[in-house]
Structure formats: structure tokens, C-alpha cells
């Protein structure tokens, strides 16, 4: 595959491949971001 064919949205197969990869990254980055946001909001205690 090439970058061109990856972003070719003509067939359902291509679209679903792209959506699947995007969905995976979106969920993972989203979760990481949510945890990071919680981290920034929690006060660190002196160890």
C-alpha cells in the first residue's frame, strides 16, 4: 500500500481500514489525554 491508496476513500474496504486505524488512535490518545488531564488536576504530595 502507499500513502495515496491509504487515503483513497472510494471503496468500503478502504474507508473501513482508515476508520479502524483512526478509531484505535483516537481512543488510545483520548484515554491517555484524560489520564494526563486528571494528573494535572491532582496535587502532588510531598513524598
Amino acid at each position, binding site marked *: 500500500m502507499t500513502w495515496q491508496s491509504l487515503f483513497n476513500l472510494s471503496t468500503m474496504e478502504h474507508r473501513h481500514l482508515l476508520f479502524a486505524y483512526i478509531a484505535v488512535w483516537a481512543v*488510545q490518545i483520548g484515554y491517555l489525554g484524560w489520564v494526563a488531564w486528571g494528573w494535572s488536576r491532582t496535587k502532588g504530595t510531598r513524598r
Partner: protein
Amino acid sequence: MPRPATTRIVAWLWFFATLAVLAVGFRQAIFIAPTEATMGNVQRIFYYHVPSAMMGLVFPYVNFIASLAYLYWRRRDPLKALTADALALASAEVTIVFVSIGLMTGMLWARASWGIWWTWDARLTTYLLLWLLYVSYLLLRRFSSTGESHTLAAVISVFAAVDVPIVFMSIQWWRTQHPSPVFADGGSLDPSMWPAFLWNLAGWAMWGTLIMLFRFALERRRQLAEQEAALVAIEASLETHQ
């Protein structure tokens, strides 16, 4: 116990290493792995779907062990129990992340390849039920008063650990429609596809460990902040009574 600075450095290194592995995995999966003969390029979802699905079956058992540890330490050593509980919560959330991804990518792949979004065979049903059980786990933790929520959630974890294999075996015995396991006879995956698969498996395993430990650290931070707040409140009330 490593000093916080060391932990931070290791964490960041791990993060960048993970991204690197995932980048290699992505390149392998999209550009290098050969196009599958019958299914075409949509088969490349496999390289993200299967590692995620596999991780989705590992973290529930982390949660199970942490829950057992919590139940064991609950009366004997409350501080250790709290740590176990934090790990249980972190692994439960990560389970849901990976199982959701497994379900979504699986459905996208199935729709494109075989025309159906879903079928009630052994694997898919078990996977869906695993998802439901862990959603219930998180809901229970959110909707019950603290103190008992940890224990009740741990009980659910035990049920889930017992139930998931039973669900799988019972439906498996009934029928199956999922493509026959690619690894069952140890070699149905074409050798040229192994690198892409292994890079992604390693990458997502590293990522899963990273986010679980990050979530664990966050939970510990919150627990410690709570404890300190409680301590401050007690000291304040002691002083006013003098």
C-alpha cells in the same frame, strides 16, 4: 522504592520507545506487509485488531489478581489493600479501552470483509460480555459509597474471571462462525505477515502497560492527596478542641 525523578525518566523513555515501536508497526502493517489474497487491503485491520483483542484478554486478569489481593489485604493491611485497589481500577479501565477497540475494529473489518457487523458466535459473544462485565464494574465503583465500592467491585471481578471462560466454552460447544483461529495450528499466518503482527503486538503491549501504570500512578496520587487532606482535617479539629 525508586526516587520519583528516576521513575519519571523511565516513564518518558518508555513512552518514546513505545511510540517508536508503534511507528515501526504502523509502517510494517500498512506499507510492507503483503496484501492478503482473498480479503485485500482491509485485512490490514488485523494488525491492530488482534493485538488489541489479545491485550483486552490480559488486563482483566491483572484486575482479577489485584482484586484478590485487595480482598486478602482488606482487613490485614489496609495500605497495601489500597494500592491493590488502585491497580484493579487502572487495569479495569485499560481493559475497557482495549476491548472496545477490539470490538470496534472487529466490526469494521467484518462489515467490509463479510458483510455483517456482528454474529453471535463464541468469541464475539464472550468479548461483548467481557465488555459488559467491566462496564458494570466501573459503574458499580462510581455509584456506590466509598468503602464498600472497592469490595463489591472486587467481587464482580471474581465473577467476571470465572464467567468469561465459561461463556466462551459453552458457546464454543454450541457453534462458531468466526474464522478459524489463525494461530491454532501454529502457522496459518503467512510468514511474511509475522513482522507486522509482532511489531504491533509488542507496541500495543508496551502502550497498554504504559497507560495502565500511568492510570495507577494517578489513582495513587489521588489516594495520597485524599489521605493528606483527611490528616489535615483531623489535625485542624484537634487544635480547635484544645
